[in-house]
């Protein structure tokens, strides 16, 4: 496919400077040192670099959407231009028979990274998701055969996603539940951050292998750390300053969203650091708690979204350190006042009883 296939609104050919910039961003996101930037750039522009085949199954296209909305033109261009996208249903101009031929050709040619978006239904022979008369499982299995590696983009392709939520009527699963003999990496999120996807691709192009992952198959550079430990509202959590209700004073003051359901304490992702859409936002920064969308089965385990997570340790006897110190301070002040009152009372009583000032 030629770049002419991609939607008109995207910036034209990338300048060398913009290209290097995007490589630098991705290199930083991967947690690699500065010296790696030229390596990454070289891999990204290698004419023999693998192409990308992008399959879409049970999904809302939100992952592709968020990728296109990577408002940083460099990042968007890098994704859509430099990695040669051989097949992407939403983006390509071809349709119908022609599109199917494109897919066949790409698969035959081999040397591609397979990107999967969306869950794959298995129940009743997989009839709940079909493209061109073939079930999603069939298409996936066929495309996986010659793939160098598979990237599951989004929580659906990674773990089944919303259609896999109880009672999972279509028997939806993630890619790694079906394909066992290929390197697979999950880039979950609903949607995932485009930069994490881009970095994963570039990592593969640079090192010819997938980045190290955690036990849920997610790249550690992006999903290695807890949201809660990097959240800008964390000091409020420690001190015991919470939003009790959306729209209250605490909400306006930017307090911690734990009590209105934030799942940050159980969610692994670099959202607070990388943020979204290049305008430096992420859910917590705009006043809504984290829903835990990068975690497997979050539709089942993280709901209700606006009820607080149980068993989260709050420092300061469960109240926050400043809040509980204030409480204890008030109590101590009360006890002191009582002690002084008793002292004064005894003094006055003694004087009344003896009729004179006591000597000692």
């Amino acid at each position: 496919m030629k770049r002419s296939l991609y939607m008109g609104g995207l910036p034209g050919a990338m300048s060398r400077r913009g290209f290097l910039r995007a490589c630098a961003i991705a290199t930083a996101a991967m947690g690699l040192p500065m010296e790696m930037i030229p390596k990454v750039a070289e891999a990204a522009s290698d004419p023999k670099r693998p192409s990308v085949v992008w399959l879409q199954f049970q999904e809302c296209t939100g992952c592709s959407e968020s990728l296109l909305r990577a408002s940083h033109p460099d990042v968007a261009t890098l994704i859509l231009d430099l990695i040669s996208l051989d097949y992407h249903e939403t983006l390509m101009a071809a349709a119908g028979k022609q599109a199917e031929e494109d897919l066949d050709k790409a698969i035959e040619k081999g040397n591609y990274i397979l990107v999967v978006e969306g869950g794959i239904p298995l129940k009743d022979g997989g009839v709940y998701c079909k493209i061109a008369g073939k079930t999603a499982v069939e298409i996936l299995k066929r495309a996986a055969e010659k793939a160098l590696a598979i990237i599951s983009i989004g929580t659906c392709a990674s773990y089944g996603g919303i259609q896999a939520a109880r009672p999972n009527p279509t028997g939806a699963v993630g890619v790694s539940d079906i394909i066992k003999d290929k390197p697979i990496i999950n880039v979950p999120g609903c949607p995932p951050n485009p930069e994490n996807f881009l970095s994963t691709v570039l990592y593969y192009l640079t090192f010819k292998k997938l980045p190290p992952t955690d036990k849920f198959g997610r790249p550690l550079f992006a999903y290695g750390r807890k949201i809660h430990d990097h959240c800008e509202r964390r000091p409020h959590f420690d001190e015991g300053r919470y939003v009790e209700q959306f729209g209250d004073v605490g909400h306006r003051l930017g307090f911690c969203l734990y009590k209105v359901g934030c799942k940050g304490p159980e969610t692994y992702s670099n959202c607070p650091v990388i943020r979204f859409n290049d305008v430096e936002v992420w859910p917590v920064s705009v006043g809504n708690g984290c829903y835990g969308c990068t975690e497997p089965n979050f539709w089942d385990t993280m709901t209700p979204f606006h009820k607080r997570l149980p068993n989260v340790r709050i420092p300061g006897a469960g109240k926050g350190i400043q809040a509980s110190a204030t409480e204890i301070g008030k109590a101590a002040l009360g006890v002191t006042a009582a002690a002084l009152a008793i002292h004064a009372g005894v003094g006055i009583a003694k004087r009344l009883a003896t009729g004179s000032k006591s000597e000692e």
Partner: protein
Amino acid sequence: MAVYEKKYVWSILLRLFHWTFAPSIFTLIVTGLYIHWPWTNTWLEGSHQFTMATMRWIHFIAGMLFTCAVLARLYLWFFGNKYERVWDFLPITGRNIKNLFSTLIYYAYLTDHHEERLGHNALAGTAYFFTILLAIVQFLTGLYLLYPEGSIFTSIGASLFGTQQEARFIHYILNWYFAWFAMVHIYIVIWNDIKHPEGLISSIFDGFKFAKKEQ
């Protein structure tokens, strides 16, 4: 042979003050220095352990007790028994000024003569007086740091000390005063207890000292 009699010197309230003040200072110095320079490894993610949060929490609670103890001592300056009142031990009377210098000379081993008194000697009293004043500065800076926004301590702190950072600097410097004070205090108390049979150390537990009976 000298005969001694038991004299009630330190009221319950004063002893309560002392035993709140002393341990809280110890705790505040340890946790305060941790806040200043967190010496443990803090590689663990903060939601598994809260070393700094816990240290600060203990510091603030101890700070509350410390503040209450100081308030109680201020009350006793004016309404305590005759040994506890501030004019009993400040060098503002001829007798106390003389005592201040004689105590200095005595502590310097320049003389063996010293005045027997049941309350504080003027040197100790003066030190305690300034310690309480500095304790007020310490709890005001502390409360200013603890309630940096929109509280009475914010306005008091800002007008007395300036910015948070300036208050923190004062708070930190005074940490060393209290550490120094605690050391000197304990040394001199033990020194006196060894040199005199008045029962100085036990007096802060049971309130009684022993004075030579006048014959």
